[in-house]
């Protein structure tokens, strides 16, 4: 048995992790024209259905129109889904079915670097999809001022959080079907209860507290909303600090759990 603390030891990483990132990018570049259609169309569906449809019955939320309220939520959700899916289903396929990791670790690239490269690629997918949704939202005129551009670098960082979390799941699941559990039990509640479609302040206090502690999409939406609406608040820095802590923990954990899974 490894001591518990060993799971939180920061792994040794070199520039070689970028070679894994470049590999994933090369695969992405082959099919990106069709791959990007879905992140482009999905927010349109939500904007039309919830913003124009449901929005007719809701005059304003916290002083902004409903469609403007949910726009940053849609951006945050797309980052979460893109990064989490990349480092769960896609990474699992590469690890288990394609044996891509086995092939790479026979070269000077270490397993730690393979996992880190994959997580960084997952973050990049968050950046790409998040930026597309952000562009759609901007085209619809749902942003105020230039601050919304900060969402682009922020989406890479949030991508890192959710791809690290996804990679932890990949390290732990017995089979690819098991991803249904983290999706249904964690990602879906996060999708609904993180202030995406309504402010969490209307929830009972214990649920609010739960969301703030265990659902990092809450802080993500707070920050994204502050930036798209052009109303930054000091509390966003606290949110960011919390997200940094959670990201670092999951990033380190994902690599160490993966090493435990793959190196016998």
């Amino acid at each position, binding site marked *: 048995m490894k001591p518990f603390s060993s799971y939180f030891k920061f792994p040794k990483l070199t520039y*070689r992790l970028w*070679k894994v990132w*470049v*590999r994933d990018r*090369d*695969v992405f570049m*082959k099919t990106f024209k069709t791959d990007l259609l879905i992140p482009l169309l999905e927010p349109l569906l939500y904007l039309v259905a919830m913003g124009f449809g449901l929005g007719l019955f809701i005059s304003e939320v916290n002083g902004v129109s409903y469609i403007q309220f949910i726009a940053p939520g849609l951006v945050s959700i797309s980052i979460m889904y893109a990064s989490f899916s990349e480092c769960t289903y896609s990474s699992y396929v590469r690890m288990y079915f*394609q*044996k*891509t990791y*086995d*092939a*790479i*670790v*026979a*070269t*000077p*690239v*270490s397993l730690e670097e393979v996992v880190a490269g994959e997580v960084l690629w997952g973050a990049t997918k968050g950046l790409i999809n998040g930026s597309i949704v952000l562009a759609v939202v901007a085209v619809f005129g749902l942003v105020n001022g230039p601050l919304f551009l900060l969402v682009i670098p922020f989406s890479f960082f949030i991508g890192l959080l959710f791809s690290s979390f996804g990679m932890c799941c990949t390290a732990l699941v017995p089979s690819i079907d098991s991803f249904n559990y983290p999706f249904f039990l964690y990602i879906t509640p996060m999708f609904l209860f993180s202030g995406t479609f309504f402010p969490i302040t209307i929830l009972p206090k214990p649920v609010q507290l739960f969301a703030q502690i265990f659902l990092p999409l809450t802080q993500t939406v707070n920050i994204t909303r502050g930036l798209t609406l052009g109303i930054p608040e000091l509390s966003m820095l606290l949110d960011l600090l919390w997200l940094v802590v959670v990201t670092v923990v999951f990033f380190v954990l994902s690599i160490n759990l993966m090493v435990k899974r793959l*190196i*016998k």
Partner: protein
Amino acid sequence: MSSIVEAKNLIKYYENLRAVDNISFEVMKGECFGFLGPNGAGKTTTMQMVHCVLPITSGELYVAGMNVKEKAREIKALIGVVPQENNLDPDFTVCKNLIVFARYFDIPKDVAEKRASDLLEFLSLTEKGDVVIDNLSSGMKHRLLIARALINEPQILVLDEPTTGLDPQARHLIWDRIVDLKKEGVTVLLTTHYMEEAAQLCDRIVIMDYGKIVEEGNPKDIVKKHFGKNVLEISYSEEILSFLKGAYHNATEEVIGDRINVFTNEPEQILSDVLERFSPREAVIRDANLEDVFLKLTGRRLRE
């Protein structure tokens, strides 16, 4: 000749299973060294420790003078690995597989492109450069795995069952290439289930069973040591068997299916004696081979 791989009292546990049980061996620079043994004997485990993808439990293991515990990255840079299971990148074409793999070794792009086209030619895959992996036959995939393993111009080539499941043409092509590489001074480590392959390619072999080395040496010497030169093979009948057992004390008999194998130094004498007394359906003298040794040492029981 100096040694390039040196293992001393090497042990590997998978949890409580002792997969490699205190083995020592030495591979010389430029030789072809084979690991033989039934499934689960520890061959692949041993090779994976040599190319540093599996940590050792205890003992010592040096590759090119470097300790596997300290210099895994440097050692991996010197080795080319052909795995048992295809792990080519299905997201890329044949040529792109080589280029992407070269990147992991820090090989500059122009050098990688040149080597990739040379290697495709070396393994008769030039026309398949733009084909996706799924559209290759299993023989082509095997050849591409070998090409990929050579992209870093390795000093040591590790092949885990390089010809399992291939047709004779593909097998011979791979054998020829291994011989070519040996001539260039590449050290070859391989595992195989084919005694013929080991006898043809390997300068030295070890036979492993239950994680231990049960025999080692040059394939021909090993056969000679165990059986002398010839084997007399006679169709099975109870009378012949009991005659042989009674009449010859310096010969050993073994029944395999419907045949009796007689290991002896005087096969002609025994053959004529048998033919005088009985009329077996078939009786031939053949060379003793590695398979006879293998089955003698590791038994006939199925392992899995």
